[in-house]
């Protein structure tokens, strides 16, 4: 487990050909004066890895560099040892599901899958297209134009297009956007089974629970930097170890503060401008402790509000460590 942009992080086993399937060495990407990705290094092998970070963290930039659609400003991006930039031959081994929803609206799902299979120059494009559509559960609606598809169906037809050649490396940018819970579960099972078959799957998400359910390993990106990487449970523990901050409004904030400060799970209290701010070690424990303390002291609670539960604040905490 690594934290705060340690270089040379390695996740997963070696790919079948030896060496990592995906390898980034000291990769940066900037747009003018704006640094989107800053000195990121890691190596990935088979398995499901989640690329986690708040919106604007640099996830899509990283995925696009891995997919050969963006040139790294500095550093090296390789898939199976080959640089991805300006090498169309890598797409025999790579599948990409872009975040943008746009798919040729005038084609049917079948025509789109077949188009992708033919461009992959597969020996049996029709068979491959049929299998891919079956896999994403779109066979029933394959002859409808994509323009008439729901958001979830469009997402799945994009995944079918990326799977059509059964790539060894699959890159997915926010793949669960627009899917209903049943489709989401189905897609998670599919990705897990692909990983079990020895494929390297990297998907981005800004939803912690999504990553928690699917990925064994995670890469946490924050403000363009690799904030943490490795086993998800380890990172999750770090996230829960951090103090949680709450604001409390009660009938007697001063007395409540004095009662709370003696409790070992409370790190600190601050009373100012009529607002009581409490820092506690555990979220759930504090929300159970507070009503008990208030009741014992005869204090009425009006409001309890966690102030820093956003993913951004969690990532900021990881980066500071």
């Amino acid at each position, binding site marked *: 487990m690594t934290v705060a942009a340690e270089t040379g992080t390695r996740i997963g086993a070696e790919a079948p050909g030896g060496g990592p399937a995906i390898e980034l060495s000291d990769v940066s990407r900037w747009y003018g004066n704006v640094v989107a990705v800053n000195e990121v290094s890691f190596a990935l092998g088979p398995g499901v890895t989640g690329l986690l970070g708040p919106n604007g963290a640099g996830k*899509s930039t990283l995925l*696009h560099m891995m997919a050969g659609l963006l*040139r790294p400003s500095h550093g090296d991006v390789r898939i199976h040892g080959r640089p991805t930039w300006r090498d*169309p031959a890598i*797409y025999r081994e790579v599948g990409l599901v*872009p975040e*943008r929803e746009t798919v*040729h609206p005038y084609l049917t799902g079948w025509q789109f899958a077949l188009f992708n299979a033919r461009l992959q120059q597969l020996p049996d494009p029709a068979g491959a297209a049929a299998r891919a559509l079956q896999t994403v559960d779109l066979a029933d609606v394959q002859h409808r134009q994509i323009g008439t598809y729901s958001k979830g169906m469009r997402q799945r037809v994009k995944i079918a297009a990326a799977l059509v050649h059964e790539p060894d490396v699959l890159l997915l940018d926010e793949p669960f956007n627009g899917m209903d819970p049943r489709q989401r579960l189905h897609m998670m099972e599919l990705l897990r089974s692909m990983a079990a078959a020895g494929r390297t799957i990297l998907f981005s998400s800004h939803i912690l629970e999504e990553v928690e359910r699917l990925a064994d390993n995670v890469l946490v990106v924050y403000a363009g930097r690799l904030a943490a990487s490795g086993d998800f449970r380890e990172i999750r523990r770090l996230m829960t170890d951090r103090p949680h901050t709450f604001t409390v409004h009660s009938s007697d904030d001063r007395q409540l503060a004095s009662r709370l400060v003696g409790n070992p799970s409370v790190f600190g209290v601050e009373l100012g401008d009529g607002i009581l701010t409490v820092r506690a070690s555990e979220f759930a424990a504090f929300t159970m402790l507070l009503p008990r303390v208030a009741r014992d002291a005869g204090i009425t609670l009006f409001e309890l509000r966690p102030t820093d539960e956003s993913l951004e604040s969690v990532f900021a905490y990881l980066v500071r460590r």
Partner: protein
Amino acid sequence: MNWTIIGVTLRGALGRRRTLLVALLAVVPVVIAGIIRVGGTTTSGTTLTAGLLDGLLVTTVLPLVALVFGTGVLGAELDDGTAVYLLVKPIERWRIVVSKATVAAGITMALVFPATLLAGLVVGAGRGGESIAVAFAIAVLPGSILYAVGFVALSVVTSRALIAGLLYVFIWEGLLAGLFAGTALLSVRQYVLSLARWLAGGDGRAITSSVEVQTAVVLAVIVLVVSVAIAIRRLASWEVRTVE
């Protein structure tokens, strides 16, 4: 060339509403020719045919049709993101450019050639304008290729290809090429006029062109090769616009 790309591009290009509007644009000169014919005129057949085909077809319809399809077949897909599905395939970039340019040039030729021939014959048949009509119809074929390929290249270079193309057609070719002799050397319109003048033989005197036919052919080949090379080179290093 790649037939899968050609097939899907053709389907996308022909399925759009703008295709119908552009097809109507190609019909306009024929309608105008019919009105002129019915209305009657004292102008000679060769002069009238050359004037109509130069002023309307070569100056306006041909570049506009090529602009719509040239910028639409690849540039529009790069803008809306659908080109990504094409670019993440193990296909050499030159095949993509050539396939897309073939569709743009093919549709332009399919619309402009019959419109030119028909408009020319409606206004000039039986009045000595037949050879002018045929010469123009043949000359717009390489003209369609040149414009279409040039606009395909422009659409890979800039996301504002439509505006840049309009500026080229109406400012560079329409205004500057008439004022300064040097600018005519980089004018597809002048190449078309020059070829039509040469193809029409003796009747070609009715067609005004600023470039000799030999020069026009050499420059046209250079423009074509350079356009294709630019398009391939820019597409090979095209970068997706990341939404972060």
